[in-house]
């Protein structure tokens, strides 16, 4: 069953002339992991904010079309209730620390205090989610004294603890180094396996290829491609729209132009696919000559 249903969504921020999203239609099944790619300014963040209810409730502006999450119409809910349905994690780990609390443990409990969860249940949920995100050993540290990767996992835990049905992540690894990015991706993959619906805007194509179920490409507020990662990430139009592609895809495309990659074979996205593809070429060549 589709958890998220978006039909012909067009949205314009106040004081802006052009819509940030145009005629976007999208359905996401329960437990699906959908990645959104696109250049900066393509509308990725706006789409994330819409799913999380901040468009239109926080940003105001003009929204046309339909947005339903778990059967509820976004226009007829209050933001304070909606945030329990859809959790939002975004780019800058530092801005997501509430500042209201002095330890990681209390920071994660902050959301539960706000919605009035009883103390015993609060402790159980906080400890559960700290174990899941691998930050149990940080419980007594100050959230501000952590590395970016650790802070981002605290931010993720602080949202997960509220048990949203849908988790929306807006470029959660863009400010992190490779180690921090891997930490965050691993947690998200695990969540997807546990059945949480995930929508994630992200630039890092190699990771998306490995983990996402489906990829949606946005450019200038419109969906320009949607489908299996292997299919969308090798779409020849992506570079024209300023969307990054993996080095494996790029080099195989150049090889194909020189006739060094079979014309009808799909281009690789991951290291494994590329290695297998090029190895096969070398072997056929070798076999043919023998």
């Amino acid at each position: 069953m589709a958890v998220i249903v978006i039909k012909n969504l067009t949205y314009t921020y106040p004081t802006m002339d052009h819509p940030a999203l145009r005629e976007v239609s999208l359905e996401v099944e329960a437990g699906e992991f959908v990645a959104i790619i696109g250049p900066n300014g393509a509308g990725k963040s706006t789409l994330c904010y819409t799913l999380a209810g901040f468009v239109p409730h926080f940003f105001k502006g003009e929204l046309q079309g339909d947005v339903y999450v778990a059967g509820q119409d976004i226009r007829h809910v209050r933001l304070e209730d909606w945030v329990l349905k859809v959790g939002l994690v975004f780019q800058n780990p530092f801005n997501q620390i509430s500042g209201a609390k002095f330890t990681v443990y209390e920071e994660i409990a902050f959301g539960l205090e706000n919605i009035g969860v009883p103390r015993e249940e609060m402790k159980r949920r906080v400890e559960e989610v700290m174990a899941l995100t691998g930050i149990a050993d940080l419980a007594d540290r100050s959230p501000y004294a952590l590395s970016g990767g650790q802070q981002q996992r605290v931010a993720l835990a602080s949202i997960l603890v509220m048990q949203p049905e849908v988790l929306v992540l807006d470029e959660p690894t863009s400010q992190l180094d490779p180690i921090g990015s891997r930490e965050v991706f691993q947690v998200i993959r695990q969540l997807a396996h546990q059945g949480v619906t995930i929508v994630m805007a992200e630039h890092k194509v190699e990771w998306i290829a490995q983990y996402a179920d489906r990829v949606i490409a946005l450019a200038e507020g419109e969906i320009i491609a949607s489908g299996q990662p292997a299919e969308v990430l090798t779409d020849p139009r992506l570079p024209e729209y300023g969307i990054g592609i993996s080095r494996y895809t790029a080099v195989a495309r150049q090889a194909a132009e020189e006739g060094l990659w079979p014309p009808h074979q799909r281009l690789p996205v991951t290291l494994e696919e590329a290695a297998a593809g090029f190895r096969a070429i070398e072997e056929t060549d070798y076999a043919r000559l023998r």
Partner: protein
Amino acid sequence: MRVCVENVHFEYPGGVKALRGVSLIIEPGERVAIVGQNGAGKTTLVKHLNGLLRPTQGQVIIGDWDTSQVEVHRLAQRVGYVFQNPDDQLFCRTVAEEVAFGPRNLGYAPERVHQLVEEALYLAELTDKAEINPYDLSPSWRKMVALASVIAMDTPIVIFDEPTTGQDARTIRRIEHMIEALRQRGKTILTITHDIDFCAENFERVVVMGQGQVLADGPKERILGMVEVLAQTYVEPPQLTRLGMQLGFETTVCTPAQFLETLRRRLGHYRANGLGRSEN
């Protein structure tokens, strides 16, 4: 202008030893990338090059200036430093004024300032945005403004701190064009980066740092294949280098051109001889 770092040690006031004996000579016109995990001492090292930090032991010489003898705002004539976050420096009402701030501080004549600003705006593809307020631009364009504002100072040495973090493919392309233009002008270019693919494709020399020391230093074709050394400081070889390794390439490849050339050679070799590869 030559950069000479001689056995530099540095200890922060809290007692953290960030550099433990770093020596490095960078010749004019070199393009050097410094890689390594967070806390390896990369930023501490480059902050020594324009005098923001001064060695507790050892010397840093820029041309004929010892950095411990010259004030930072004077060293700015020789070393330009683009900080990671553009928002840490933008304050003017227009992009053009922002870009002119540095050259004006250096005391250049108005005509030269004007010319340098025009050129920097052109290189950063900002010519049509010269009169816009930097804070009305997207973060990617703000990054380009920050780059232009340092390029316009026309220093022989330019340092980039994590230029690609958080940027999309298009912006990274723009930054690459800018680096290429600077190379053609004979500038020495240094970068600190976690983006190892960007490093492989735009720099010729790689310095690997870990625990305040230089672990390896040399041409990228030698360094980026040193899996064990890189792993000590949590760096993985670039994507194409790893692909080359998986395919059993004899040499370390860093760029698409190098990869394709090796591939062609190997295939051509089989085609010509029908041998040269072990059975498996």
